[in-house]
């Protein structure tokens, strides 16, 4: 009998009814994050059936996907600055939260922001919790040792009504990441390299646990970047065992337990890491000692190369050819020097203080190239406020970049922040799918450092060159 993994400990702690024969487990959810895009149909379901929200106290609501990133000081502004359909959806969210008794971090809240940024920021995200959201990047919260995954709107309705979900136990995958990261290479490069290695379907059916000294060396924001893109490797959830870094991050946050409850919680959290003899269904190793900054060249995150490499030779695969054709790139072409039109720093992947500090540090004393529009969008209003207190916005705007209100923004272009057709955007977001940032838009995924290097050079460039400046 082998020991238990972090995942198994959290899984077993939330079984209201275990799996049996044909029937899936009834699985309890500790934190339900909701936003305006994937909830209207779920609230409709509750209304149709005359149901209440079972645990408004375990429901954290905000607006992020279709919200404008220009200032909205009062709701009346919405019709002016937002798309009509988006404005309607935002109003529906406000109305639904009011009707069902859920506190909403709306335009008047200093805590509004991307749902995967504010959960951790408020301390609502905690080790050992089960966390879901109608958003696939819910995997972000796994950085704290929570079991967190994305669900569809029907399941959002299930959680609103019952605080439970029907679940089958997934398989587990250990991803051991070791070595010391070279300068100029970061968490984003780790996860891009991993997806390149396992493929965009490598994790289907599995929950990943990220382990190893390279993971231990990351701060919480960097760990969130890694866990965030777990879904891009096909796995719904990615977890990192809680340690002193986790506890230090959470201490003093508004929604964590207080006093003696805090001590008890810390003791429980530190008992969660996988037992030494825990079994995993699959094991993957990645050494990052010689890792280079990574950039994508195609239309999924698995189509990725070191920035100094060329695009691989044409494999003859239908999707490969279609991707390069869409991107306006050729097999065998070097990535360095590819002209860039737009640079986006933001999204639930890379919009936290670590990312903005690095962006400002590298932009300091430099200018965004004249052919490039650069947009920097903080992950939350609270991140924005902290960044401004440190003067980061002054450096960013002095370099010629735009500094915005928080939101998902140009990651998926739902709020009017779009990349024009045929234009190439180096983006710190998570998806380079066709049309993701706007119809016909071309996306190159990269770290904040690589994004800055591209903005300054006006073409894809190696961020390591900026370090010696």
């Amino acid at each position, binding site marked *: 009998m082998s020991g238990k993994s972090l995942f198994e400990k959290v899984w077993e702690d939330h079984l*209201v009814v275990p799996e049996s024969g*044909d*029937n*899936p487990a*009834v699985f*309890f959810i*500790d934190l339900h994050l909701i936003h305006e*895009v*994937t909830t*209207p*149909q779920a609230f*409709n379901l509750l209304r149709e*059936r005359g149901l209440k929200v*079972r645990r408004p106290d*375990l429901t954290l609501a905000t607006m992020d996907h*279709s919200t404008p990133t220009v200032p909205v000081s009062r709701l009346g502004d919405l019709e002016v600055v937002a798309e009509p*359909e988006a404005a*309607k*959806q935002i109003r*529906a969210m406000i109305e639904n939260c009011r009707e069902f008794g859920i506190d909403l971090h709306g335009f008047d809240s200093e805590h509004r922001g991307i749902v995967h940024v504010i959960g951790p920021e408020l301390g609502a995200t*905690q080790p050992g919790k089960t966390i879901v959201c109608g*958003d*696939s990047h819910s995997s972000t919260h796994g950085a704290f040792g929570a079991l967190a995954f*994305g*669900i*569809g709107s*029907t*399941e959002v*309705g*299930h959680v609103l*009504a*019952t*605080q*439970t*979900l*029907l679940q*089958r136990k997934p398989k587990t995958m250990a991803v051991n990441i070791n070595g010391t990261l070279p300068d100029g290479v970061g968490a984003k490069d780790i996860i891009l390299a991993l997806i390149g290695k396992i493929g*965009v*379907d490598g994790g*289907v059916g599995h929950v990943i646990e990220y382990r190893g000294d390279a993971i231990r060396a990351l701060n919480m924001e960097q760990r969130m970047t890694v866990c965030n893109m777990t*879904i*891009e490797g*096909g796995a*719904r959830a990615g977890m990192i065992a809680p340690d002193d870094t986790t506890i230090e991050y959470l201490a003093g946050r508004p929604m964590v337990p207080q006093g003696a409850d805090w001590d*008890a*919680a810390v003791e*429980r959290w530190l008992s969660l890491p996988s037992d030494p003899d825990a079994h995993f269904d699959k094991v993957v190793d990645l050494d990052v000692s010689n890792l280079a900054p990574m950039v994508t060249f195609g239309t*999924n995150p698995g189509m990725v190369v070191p920035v100094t490499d060329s695009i691989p030779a044409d494999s003859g*695969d*239908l*999707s490969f050819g279609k991707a390069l054709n869409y991107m306006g790139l050729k097999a065998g072409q070097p990535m360095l020097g590819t002209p860039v039109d737009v640079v986006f720093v933001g999204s639930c992947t890379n919009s936290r203080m670590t990312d903005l500090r690095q962006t400002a540090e590298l932009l300091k004393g430099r200018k965004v190239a004249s052919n490039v529009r650069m947009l920097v969008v903080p992950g939350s209003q609270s991140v924005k406020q902290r960044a401004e207190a440190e003067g980061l916005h002054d450096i960013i705007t002095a370099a010629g970049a735009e500094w915005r209100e928080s939101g998902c923004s140009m990651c*998926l*272009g*739902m709020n009017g922040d779009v990349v024009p057709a045929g234009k190439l955007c180096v983006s710190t977001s998570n*998806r380079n*799918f*066709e*049309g*993701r940032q706007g*119809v016909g838009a071309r996306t190159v995924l990269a770290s904040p450092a690589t994004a800055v290097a591209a903005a300054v050079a006006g073409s894809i460039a190696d961020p390591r060159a900026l370090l010696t400046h």
Partner: protein
Amino acid sequence: MEKITRIESATVVLPMTDIDTDQIMPARYLTTTNKEGLGEAAFADWRYDKSGKPVADFPLNQPGAADSQVLVAGNNFGCGSSREHAPWGLVDFGFRAVISTQIADIFRNNALKNGLVPVIVDGEIHGWLLDNPGAQVAVDVVERTLTLPDGRSVEFPLDGFSRTCLLEGVDQLGYLLARDEQITRFEQQRTWQP
């Protein structure tokens, strides 16, 4: 949700691998607050040109596609975003089953809640289906089988619970609501409170 026991239909084939839910349902259509009418928007950026005219050689625009209930797609169909608008759009278009060698986890979950049967087949059967668009196939939910025109019949994985939900046309919320007492007991008896 309508009951689904057996689907007999000609296939529509999209051979690309890793078709993500941003292709199935682009983000600009997610501002809707209901589920209806999304069939028009399914694969919008592949289906229509810049002026909004149908792209002539796109499979969903071929004669007969509108009557098809079975979509055959390349490996790892439905990856990416959790948007349930993707299966809503496919079902609204008329599809009742999707066949591939692998279907992404969240998409699969969402599909099963909307009467869209996810059918996983091996590489050989998949290859034949990709090579023969428009083939008349049968997806039998009772038997959990896919039958090809030449009579070959293969089983596909479908857990008993999901199968029952498809056959009876029920969603799972009723099942969860009936567990109310157990949920209350769990909430009261757990050793820590979230």
